[in-house]
């Protein structure tokens, strides 16, 4: 993977790019690959579209490097939406925008290795590290929530240093538990539900990323920072018992 900061330049004429998705969607792409500036552009542009409050846009979502808009194909004049989108795109340099406001820094207690992270050593070896070095690197600095998707409340977090550009495994692990921390392609995920995955399982948290019964079902937001705090295996059960949703995780506003 190329360096995240230089992969796509704003002067790349191919982006931003508009395309339809089915009869009900439009996609505004800011890059053709994972890229930090394109990700920030997508998050900011989605906020801007939401702020416009266009009556014919039923839903928006930002992914790693693009913004999706859903509309009603019966009622909508697609060309009119495209015109407004282009004007909004031209109104500023979206690649140069900062991070959104209202972000939080989460600290999530995590057990690394052992039965709670059976592939830690394997993932570390692919990055050229010992297990101890890997834990130190993965917990040294926060990662950012780049997007939420695939499954409800599932955060793609990154971008990790280049040595963590490790591939997904060819096979699929049939089931890893809810709260599992997995790693691949310079990103981390905490799975909100038990799931099969091709990512490598390196740790375990007590964090629930999807709380359907709660007033706020999705605790994490794109742009939030997450720092994983290593704990001993025997601490996890107590943290979970004391707080079944957060498993000891705490959030503070980022000024």
């Amino acid at each position, binding site marked *: 993977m190329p360096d995240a900061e230089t992969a796509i330049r704003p002067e790349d004429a191919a982006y931003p790019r508009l395309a339809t998705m089915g009869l009900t969607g439009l996609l505004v792409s800011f890059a053709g690959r994972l890229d930090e500036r394109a990700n920030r552009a997508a998050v900011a542009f989605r906020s801007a579209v939401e702020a416009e409050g266009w009556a014919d846009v039923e839903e928006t979502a930002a992914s790693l490097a693009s913004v999706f808009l*859903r509309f009603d194909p*019966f009622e909508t004049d697609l060309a009119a939406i495209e015109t407004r989108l282009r004007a909004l795109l031209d109104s500023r340099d979206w690649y140069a925008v900062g991070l959104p406001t209202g972000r939080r820094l989460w600290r999530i207690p995590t057990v690394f290795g052992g039965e709670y992270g059976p592939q830690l050593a394997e993932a570390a070896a692919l990055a050229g590290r010992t297990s101890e070095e890997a834990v130190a690197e993965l917990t040294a600095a926060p990662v950012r929530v780049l997007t939420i998707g695939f499954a409800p409340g599932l955060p793609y977090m990154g971008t990790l240093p280049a040595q963590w550009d490790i591939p997904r495994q060819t096979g699929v692990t049939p089931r890893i538990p809810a709260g599992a921390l997995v790693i691949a392609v310079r990103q981390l995920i905490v799975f909100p539900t038990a799931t099969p995955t091709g990512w490598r399982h390196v740790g375990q948290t007590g964090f629930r990323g999807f709380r359907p019964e709660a007033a706020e079902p*999705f605790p994490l937001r794109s742009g939030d920072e997450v720092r994983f705090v290593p704990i001993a295996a025997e601490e996890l059960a107590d943290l979970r018992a004391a707080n079944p949703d957060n498993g000891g995780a705490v959030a503070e506003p980022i000024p």
Partner: protein
Amino acid sequence: MSALLVLAAGPGVTVQDRGRPGWLAQGLSRGGAADVLALAEGAALLGQTEDCAAVEMAMSGGTFEAEGDLIIALTGASMAATLDGVPLAWNATHRLGQGQRLVIGGAKAGVYGYLHVAGGIATAPVMGSRSAHLTAGLGAAVGSGDRLPVGEAGPTRPGLGIAVADRFSGGTVGVVPSAQTGLFSAAERDRFAAATFTRDARGNRQGVRLVHDGAPFAATEGQLSIVSEIIVPGDIQMTGDGTPYVLLPECQTMGGYPRIGTVVPQDLPVVAQAAPGTRLRFRFVTREEALADLHRQGRGAARFGGAIRPLLRDPGDIADLLAYQLIGGVTAGADLDGEDGA
């Protein structure tokens, strides 16, 4: 409040409505009925809003008992249904009196059958919908011992039928180009449009796998190096080995496999209702053609106006209610009380 008691249920029985739109940014797909047309047909038969929830039955139904007097409608994949042992017409409304027992068997064609109740299934909504979204861990399958509360019914009647076009045996479905169609060469797209696929045994509310005799389909830019992108139901994605999957309402919201196009929403029920072994073909259409087709079909209850008629029964053939035919020219005021098989 009246209710539908569940005495037995097949493994794929769930409560479904039009789903839970608006959570795409949080990773939750809309879900809802796999065949939204069947949901609308049931609402039209019962004269109620399409927002009412119904019981969706994948491949096989169950045994239900009425608590209170209910009017029900049966739509979607045709299944063998009996009321206290007497066969019931599909695509029709019936009275289910207090304590009467409805037995719904396996699908004769198609996958998803629907049991609607006048007033709608009134389980507690979660995040704005009654739909079970099992992939997301929302709700649960309907099982033996469940009591499904029923809402307040408006004016409705038994003995109505709806004429439906066959969407239960595959055929050719329309596909519009999508954001990633250009990742496939023109030759590869032509080969895709010329192929005849068979719906594989692997398939569920998330999507169905398709198999064919030819070579796998590959994107020009490489199958495994595409940035994960938003998915819409109907997207046809090529997995790592070049096998197409058509994604359905309970799909993941984001994926990294390239998509050759998107099945138009009006044809998606044909894909959802294709049972394993059913043949499917794809035809690329322009956005304009697909929209014109959508407008021609219309939406809301008005589109079914002419298709809903009283059921005609041969008085000499009372036991065989499956022999009911739909006839034209009968006024809506015709007295059909007691002709519902109750």
